[in-house]
């Protein structure tokens, strides 16, 4: 029985309209359906779509799921059902040669996988998952590189479980191999499984799903008192609790699963939270990302051919995407379940790279505490952890800078508006707690910004409660100065004072005054502070939009802002000349009060990131050779 026993009739898309090159494309192929039975296959395909989209989290992911039905005519109806495996002894001439009785077990439904894969690839080259629907009411199915299932009631559950393996790399969570109580399945070998939903590790601090475990949940959460057999005792914690439950990955003990139950353990139940997160993260790169317009995206170039972007979704979820010159944009992914604080403009994530294989992140969580996480090329992402004891205003910004590789300085405002600092260094780790800087109190919503002109010098800025701009400085030799006013303007209370050090003896400041006018002043070592502020080329910002400034080289500045018409504007200054007029960047439109993130990976390159008028993350770039590119949705390329 071969492909001579039938023919491909055609392919029909039965769900979704996502671009095929950025979608999860499922192909359903029929076997054992004669030409006259194609209606039964069509009905089975529709039933699968309904079952899939009724299973969490696939329903939420429907915008990036396409389902295709490949109608294939077979000479005979049904599938082989060998008597030796307890079947009827029937044989059927079918295109994919489906047969029950694999390995002598009637329910094991196998087929010619090469034919299935090559047919799927020919019909839908972009397919992600191929499933074979076999025209029989005998219960059966199988997993592997393709999934097979029959028309028996409940068999779609097989397909969804197998998709867990084939498409998402999930492990089986059941605690036995072939039925249970096997003597050779008592204790899992001492090797950590590679799959994301099983582990032999019960260390809370290094557990692979530690980000989802509440501090109040005991670890291990449930142990097997008698490893000679599987433990089916009830869960000691409420349903849905993530912890470590002993008995998984084909062993009675020594391996743990994240929840008491999961579709990777039993059919007919939901996926556990960790499997759902894995599935989400498989899909998320295919999706565009809604981001808070008012919370600045943070972008870091660990090296010139690489960008890491961090953003906060409308629900506060912390997400990231990265671009590499060799591979393009990787797509958005969740950052360890972190949720940034709402309130005001909403807390952004701030990111720094102390060296090219390391990232440090900071945000204010929903409990208004300061959180941090880090990524290292050698170990991946850490969990989020709390820094110090302060509680911030909802939506506060944590400003972070690294004066040198082994030093981090943080600045924020606490719930009283006090300007606070904390530091870390490679020798001593994190300081014991936050320190109030010089009695400073910031206006409601004003962040503390900072720059290091030299490795042992800091300049910090904020808007005070009288809405004037204030500064202070720290030098290793003399410690912190007191706060002093940089007179000449009155700001909005939530204005950000943006600072750039084009070289160690120069500071350029940018902010918006109470009328939204974009104002600047400067300091240099020879002349001190300039006499007052000036408006930059007549620019006025959208209320709540801050000025972003970058220095591509010593004698050049580029500014970005959302204007009063919500368009994305830029201007520049070149040494020896005046400020250029403001221009709209590639026709881009942001949201009222939106923020523009910009970075220069090298002197002739600017990358810009904005929340578009539709709430999605967009980017464009400029380079010296080609000028400005068009805007594109930030997702996967």
């Amino acid at each position: 029985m071969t492909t001579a026993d039938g023919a491909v009739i055609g392919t029909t898309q039965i769900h979704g309209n996502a671009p095929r090159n950025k979608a999860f494309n499922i192909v359903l192929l029929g076997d054992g359906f004669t030409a006259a039975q194609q209606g039964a296959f069509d009905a089975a395909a529709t039933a699968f779509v309904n079952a899939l989209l009724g299973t969490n989290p696939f329903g939420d992911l429907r915008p990036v799921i396409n389902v295709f039905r490949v109608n294939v005519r077979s000479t005979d109806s049904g599938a082989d059902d060998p008597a030796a495996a307890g079947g009827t002894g029937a044989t059927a001439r079918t295109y994919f040669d489906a047969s029950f009785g694999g390995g002598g077990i009637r329910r094991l439904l196998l087929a010619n996988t090469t034919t299935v894969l090559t047919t799927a690839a020919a019909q839908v080259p972009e397919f992600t998952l191929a499933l074979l629907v076999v025209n029989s009411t005998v219960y059966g199915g199988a997993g592997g590189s393709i999934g097979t299932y029959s028309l028996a009631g409940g068999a779609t559950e097989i397909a969804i479980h197998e998709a867990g393996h084939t498409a998402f790399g999930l492990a089986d969570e059941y605690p036995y191999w072939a039925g249970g109580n096997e003597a050779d399945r008592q204790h899992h070998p001492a090797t950590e499984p590679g799959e994301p939903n099983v582990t032999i590790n019960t260390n809370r601090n290094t557990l692979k799903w530690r980000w989802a475990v509440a501090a109040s949940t005991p670890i291990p959460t449930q142990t097997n008192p008698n490893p000679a057999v599987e433990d089916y005792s009830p869960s000691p914690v409420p349903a849905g609790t993530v912890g470590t439950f002993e008995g998984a990955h084909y062993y009675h003990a020594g391996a743990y699963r994240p929840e008491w139950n999961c579709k990777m353990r039993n059919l007919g139940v939901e996926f556990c939270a960790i499997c759902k997160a894995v599935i989400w993260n498989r899909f998320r790169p295919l999706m565009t990302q809604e981001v808070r317009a008012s919370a600045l995206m943070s972008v870091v170039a660990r090296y010139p051919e690489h960008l890491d972007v961090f953003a906060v979704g409308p629900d506060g979820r912390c997400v990231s995407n990265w671009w590499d010159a060799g591979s393009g944009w990787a797509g958005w992914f969740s950052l360890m379940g972190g949720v940034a604080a709402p309130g005001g403009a909403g807390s952004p994530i701030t990111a720094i790279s102390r060296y090219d294989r390391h990232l440090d992140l900071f945000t204010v969580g929903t409990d208004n505490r300061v959180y941090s996480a880090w990524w290292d090329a050698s170990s991946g992402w850490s969990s989020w952890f709390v820094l110090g004891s302060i509680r911030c205003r909802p939506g506060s910004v944590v400003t972070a800078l690294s004066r040198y590789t082994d030093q981090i300085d943080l600045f924020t405002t606490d719930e009283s508006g006090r300007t606070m600092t904390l530091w870390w260094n490679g020798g001593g780790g994190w300081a014991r707690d936050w320190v109030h800087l010089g009695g400073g109190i910031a206006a409601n919503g004003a962040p503390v910004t900072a720059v290091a002109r030299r490795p042992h010098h800091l300049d910090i800025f904020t808007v005070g409660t009288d809405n004037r701009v204030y500064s202070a400085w720290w030098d290793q030799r003399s410690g912190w100065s007191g706060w002093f006013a940089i007179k000449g303007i009155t700001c909005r209370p939530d204005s950000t004072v943006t600072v750039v050090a084009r070289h160690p003896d120069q500071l350029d400041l940018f902010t918006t005054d109470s009328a939204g006018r974009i104002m600047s002043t400067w300091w240099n070592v020879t002349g001190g502070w300039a006499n007052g502020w000036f408006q930059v080329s007549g620019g006025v910002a959208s209320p709540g939009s801050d000025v972003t400034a970058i220095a591509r080289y010593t004698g050049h500045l580029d500014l970005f802002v959302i204007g009063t018409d919500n368009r994305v504007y830029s201007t520049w200054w070149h040494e020896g000349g005046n400020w250029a007029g403001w221009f709209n960047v590639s026709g881009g439109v942001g949201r009222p009060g939106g923020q523009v993130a910009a970075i220069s990976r090298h002197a002739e390159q600017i990358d810009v990131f904005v929340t578009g008028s539709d709430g999605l993350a967009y980017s464009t770039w400029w380079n010296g050779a080609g000028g400005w590119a068009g805007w594109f949705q930030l997702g996967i390329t």
Partner: protein
Amino acid sequence: MSSPETPGSPGEETPDGPAALRLIYEYENGEVRLVSQQRVDVAVTGFDLTEAPTTDHVEVRDIDGAALSRVRVRDALPQSLEVFGEPGEAITRVPDTVQRGAFTVVVPAPSAAARVVLQRPGPEAPPGERGIESVEPVVLSDDAIEETQR
């Protein structure tokens, strides 16, 4: 945004053709052979050179043998098959006595890509040797990318 959407990457021209390759491998009794290469326009997720591969994977290499990307292949040559009981009955596993089948993987294939190598991580070094020398992966299949697919 009001401007037309222009997909692309910062500072990089949009490639002329699809930058991914679908590979279909057949295996039988431990022997693996590549039976199909197909250029496809699809975004490939989940590849990373910074991670040490712990599972079977396809490594895309340039003409000099340098790795460009690695894509994991879960259970490429399965030793067992999953059997499902009637609803409410246990799921079980049985040995795959046939040891014959096929699997597919889609890999990033930029213009510099020249070879695709299916590999399995080498066996763990004995405890005393850990940290001294990494164990070489086992090559299951090493194939040139066909000229028509480059």
